[in-house]
């Protein structure tokens, strides 16, 4: 061996290593802060805002833990935040109470800190919540007090999370909203509703027949669905709390795929009363047929009313395989909007203001995946890829997230993902599900 050369080379190697380490160290730069809206909800390339949610002190322990879990889940799934690991915290929580010592939160990389105090007396629950921006010092930028019963815990947690998201982005979050879906069983299927985070599932349809394709009314008070309970696929409307439905449409053949008009006065449905499935608009009051939107030999189905009420998207195989078309809600000529692949179904509109975006299911290489399509810019975004089958998308009330049914290896169920595809989907409900429909924002 050549000991001298060896030493020299070791030294060179060490120098190179030091250089690499120095370069790595310089990568993590300081993040910029702007005025007004702090997180741009439409910015696809934004970084996630690091926020700390320490466990409350001087509180009811179990309730405080549940509240911390609710807030962490909400902010995480919103797609805007990175919720920091509580194990890293350096603050003296006992001494801080509802305040903060900013430097100690800077030292763990937090830009925002949520403090709260939750106390239960008897059945009463009181929640004091504060939001701090670490760069703005030790006075809270948002303060709220809530009072309710113990059973209101999740509701209050969601209300507060919505305030936090609104503070940062200028628009309300979707926390506290509900999802309707179909739970498939052996020989029957049930229309159900569940909180967006998977809590409190309950049955809407209460029969042993096949029930499918639920649709929330714009006010959130009712759910329309199709049921075979009287052997024909008829359209029913039930209270969103569940229970006995009223039959709205029982035309000969199918009465399926209802979608409410934004004012709640009408429903777009698929009827086959004239021989083959066509799109009709019917009255939400008595089911009377008002307008026939399609008329051809092909199958037209799966209508979805646009949030401004002017258009209806639907699926038609008039040009071969199923593709997405859009037709004026008052009737007129339909135009094809989906041009990717040979099989596109289940369109749904984003409720985000000022946008004209749909999501749908596309078949790609034998698998089903969710994509979004901006009808103005024609920009397509994949929401899922290479993870089982993903079908039947539905947007959150603010349009920033998409729920869908997935059979991925992580388990079948309902998943939600940011609508810009910026982070992976999270499962909120597990089971064999179809027909996802995300309900409207909860009333404050």
């Amino acid at each position, binding site marked *: *061996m*050549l000991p001298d*050369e*060896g030493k020299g*080379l*070791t030294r060179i*190697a*060490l120098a190179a*290593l*030091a250089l690499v*380490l*120095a370069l*790595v*160290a310089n*990568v*993590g730069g*300081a993040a910029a802060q702007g005025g007004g809206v702090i997180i741009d909800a439409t910015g696809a390339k934004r970084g996630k805002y*690091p926020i700390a949610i320490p466990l409350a002190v001087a509180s009811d322990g179990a309730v405080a833990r549940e509240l911390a879990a609710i807030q962490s889940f909400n902010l995480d799934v919103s797609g805007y935040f*990175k919720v*920091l*690991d509580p*194990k*890293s915290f*350096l*603050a*003296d929580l006992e001494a801080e109470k509802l305040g903060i*010592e900013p*430097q*100690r939160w*800077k*030292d*763990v*990389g*937090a830009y925002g800190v949520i403090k709260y105090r939750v106390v239960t007396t008897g059945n009463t629950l009181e929640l004091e919540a504060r939001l701090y921006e670490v760069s703005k010092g030790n006075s809270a930028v948002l303060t709220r007090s809530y009072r309710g019963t113990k059973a209101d815990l999740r509701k209050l947690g969601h209300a507060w999370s919505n305030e936090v998201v609104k503070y940062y982005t200028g628009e309300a979050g979707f926390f506290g909203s509900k999802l309707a879906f179909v739970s498939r069983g052996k020989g029957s299927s049930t229309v159900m509703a569940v909180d967006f985070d998977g809590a409190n599932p309950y049955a809407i349809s209460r029969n042993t027949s096949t029930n499918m394709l639920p649709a929330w009314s714009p006010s959130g008070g009712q759910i329309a669905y199709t049921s075979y309970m009287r052997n024909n696929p008829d359209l029913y409307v039930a209270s969103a709390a569940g229970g006995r439905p009223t039959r709205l449409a029982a035309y000969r053949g199918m009465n399926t795929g209802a979608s409410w008009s934004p004012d709640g006065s009408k429903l777009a449905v698929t009827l086959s009363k004239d021989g083959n499935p066509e799109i009709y608009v019917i009255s939400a009051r008595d089911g009377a047929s008002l307008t026939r939107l399609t008329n051809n030999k092909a199958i037209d189905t799966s209508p979805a009313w646009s949030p401004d009420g002017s258009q209806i998207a639907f699926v038609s195989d008039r040009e071969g395989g199923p593709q997405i078309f859009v037709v004026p809600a008052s009737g007129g000529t339909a135009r094809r909007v989906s041009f990717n692949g040979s099989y596109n179904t289940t369109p749904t509109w984003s409720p985000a203001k000022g946008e004209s975006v749909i999501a749908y299911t596309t078949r790609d290489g034998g698998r089903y995946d969710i994509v979004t399509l901006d009808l103005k810019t024609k920009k397509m975004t994949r929401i899922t890829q290479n993870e089982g089958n993903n079908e039947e998308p539905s947007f959150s009330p603010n349009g920033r997230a998409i729920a869908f049914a997935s059979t991925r290896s992580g388990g079948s169920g309902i998943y939600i993902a940011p609508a810009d595809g910026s982070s992976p989907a999270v499962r909120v409900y597990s089971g064999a599900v179809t027909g996802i429909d995300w309900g409207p924002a909860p009333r404050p």
Partner: protein
Amino acid sequence: MGMKTGGGDDLNSEINVTPLVDVMLVLLIIFMVTAPLLNTGVELDLPKVTAQKLEDADGPLVLSIDPNRRLTLGKAPVKWGELEVKLQTNERVKKEQVLYVEAAAALPYAVVVTAMAVAKDAGVAKVLLLTDPTDNLKLDELDR
């Protein structure tokens, strides 16, 4: 006429790769021998005595060790037993990949090295030692 021997004066235009391969093999062996050595010990960038100012809006994240071996991370006292978890989960450390260590002069070398080893285990890419900037190093005292 006898048999013709040798190649005469013809030029051989091909590259002679033998020395090249020799050098490469030697280099390979040297790297194989030195690589394990690089992983032992604690890498550290020795601070320059005339250190540049630290430009960081939030101030650097400093781990201080006082003469009684008590640790302070930023402004918070931490125990030796929880130091690794605190550093490992720290979002700032993850982003900046750097930790400044400020150790009291009287501390044994082993204590400082232990702190640095814990930082390395916690995934800190770069540990920097803070010094008091001074112009007159008291080298005479060290010789005594």
